[in-house]
């Protein structure tokens, strides 16, 4: 089913699957959805996460340490789909684990699990022919990253290939929290808007209620990743779902936080 953002701005929550363990990731995802996340991005841990900052690097290392595999993430996705039929569900991965598993086999398994979309960080739209065809056969939405440095022609191509939503990177660089949102983001969203009617989600560095409110002024949704992962890192596993629920509720209540 198509990815929908019920709230304005919508909220995409990134979680590294298997951190601290798969069962807890499942409980955290459910808590996040119930607290107001529209879409869950389930991150497949990878040994060389070169688009990620230290927070998600550490989460990947922890998840890999106890052997989290792509098949486990797909099984988790299936459980989540059964538990929360209306939430958006996206698999977030680097390409090599998918390539090794088999692209066709992966797409079939993801579709069967009830996944809505796939974001492969190191898959560029220029080289994505076979990948896009496979996703299309299985009715999975391809999601691409658009950067502030991308020229208009590239944004147009990214917009044309995307389904579900377009992921606008708020600034050049890697994932991670930051104090204030870069001015790059609004300009990028405005440029992207010329080429697509899809929702545009802004990510990289969105970490508090002010950021979410600011993104809401010019985009449809925000992606929160490292801020959630660091909250999980600092929580006892049993407490992590409620910590995440509180964190997301806090994002949704900027006025109260300001007071």
């Amino acid at each position, binding site marked *: 089913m198509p990815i929908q953002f019920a709230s304005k701005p919508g909220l995409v929550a990134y979680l590294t699957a298997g951190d601290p363990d798969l069962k807890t990731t499942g409980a955290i995802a459910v808590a996040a959805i119930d607290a107001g996340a529209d879409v869950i991005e389930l991150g497949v841990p990878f*040994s*060389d996460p070169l688009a990620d900052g230290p927070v998600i*690097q550490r989460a990947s290392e922890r998840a890999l340490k106890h052997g989290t595999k792509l098949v486990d993430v797909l099984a988790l996705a299936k459980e989540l789909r059964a538990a929360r039929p209306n939430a958006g569900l996206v698999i977030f991965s680097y390409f090599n684990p998918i390539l090794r598993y088999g692209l066709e086999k992966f797409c079939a398994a993801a579709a069967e699990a009830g996944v809505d979309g796939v974001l492969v960080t*190191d898959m560029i739209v220029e080289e994505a022919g076979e990948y896009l065809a496979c996703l299309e056969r299985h009715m999975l939405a391809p999601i691409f990253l658009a950067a502030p440095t991308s020229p208009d022609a590239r944004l147009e191509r990214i917009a044309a290939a995307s389904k579900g939503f377009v992921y606008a990177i708020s600034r050049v660089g*890697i994932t991670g929290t930051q104090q204030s949102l870069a001015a790059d983001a609004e300009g990028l969203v405005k440029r992207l808007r010329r080429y697509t009617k899809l929702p545009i989600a802004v990510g990289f560095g969105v970490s508090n209620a002010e950021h979410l409110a600011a993104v809401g002024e010019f985009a449809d949704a925000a992606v929160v990743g490292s801020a959630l992962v660091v909250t999980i890192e600092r929580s006892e596993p049993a407490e992590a779902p409620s910590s995440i629920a509180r964190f997301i509720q806090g994002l949704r209540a900027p006025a109260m936080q300001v007071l």
Partner: protein
Amino acid sequence: MAALEELEHAYAAAQADPAFHARLDSLLRDYAGRPTPLYFAERLTEELGGAKIYLKREDLLHTGAHKINNCLGQGLLAQRMGKHRIIAETGAGQHGVATATVCALLGMECVVYMGEEDMRRQELNVYRMRLLGAEVRGVSSGSKTLKDAINEAMRDWVTNVRTTHYLLGSVLGAHPYPMMVRDFHRVIGKEARQQIQEKEGRLPTAIIACVGGGSNAIGAFYEFIPDANVRLIGVEAGGRGKKLGEHAARFEGGVPGVLQGTYSYVLQDEDGQIALTHSVSAGLDYASIGPEHAALHDSGRAEYVSASDDAALAATVKLARTEGILPALESAHAVAECIHVAPKLGRHEILIINLSGRGDKDMGILSRELKLKGA
């Protein structure tokens, strides 16, 4: 992507500009010391009792290895692009030293990423880079070697892409890097091809080079690709065993995969996680291999073999004692293959070893390893 396109265009423009070539050629000649000699290793030849062995002496270049060819090229290119901050990764430290050197020469800011394990192994080169004014940033993630240094350099590049040029040191990464780095090293094979014809009036039986990412090998091979009778032999690091994690022999132990923007043979586990690698030489200790080598392998035009840590160490001693030349541990892998194959060939055959670097940087490792082995 935008940065790669910018680089591709700038590189094409530089290639078409005679002034760029004139500047590069003059630096290669007067600063780096090109052309490098093609030296007939008479005592080694006699000792092995087979093919005539020639050494392409890239070890005599300024900074001690072939890496300076590419650093001068990309340094001048960065200057043309108006980028004054240079970042680089380094494994053995030779590329880092060459980058730091070129940055000093051109007055540019230089940051070198290096795995902490490699910093420990190649302490002298860390000091050399700092002496040259570069900042060396240790990388503590993953295996703490070359692969992790590249990850960190790429993270820096995407963050500072507007002001920074990433001076990648091997034929790896996304296009145009593998092509560009190859082009800057083509001079090795061009010179060698002409020199061997002057000395012997014919082409060699084979040209042998070590392959980490594969920059010296592709530079040595490239001009010989159309010469179908010349065997091209790449030597990977066989490390200390066949088990995954014990070596860096990508063609023996790897399967096609994507690492750091390159589709090539990759050492990885069944889940597509990149494997740890081992080699006594930091410069060969990498889980993937330049994509052009993968193409040469698959087409059958080049052959790839491996040499173990022990064979490389023994080859180092052999070359030092027969010729008075101390090869880098990386280049010693090519020497080891030559020691293996030369005796099987007749005296009329000719082998060229690309001696990509000198071994001064390896004194610490050699004194530890060779003491253990009683040499």
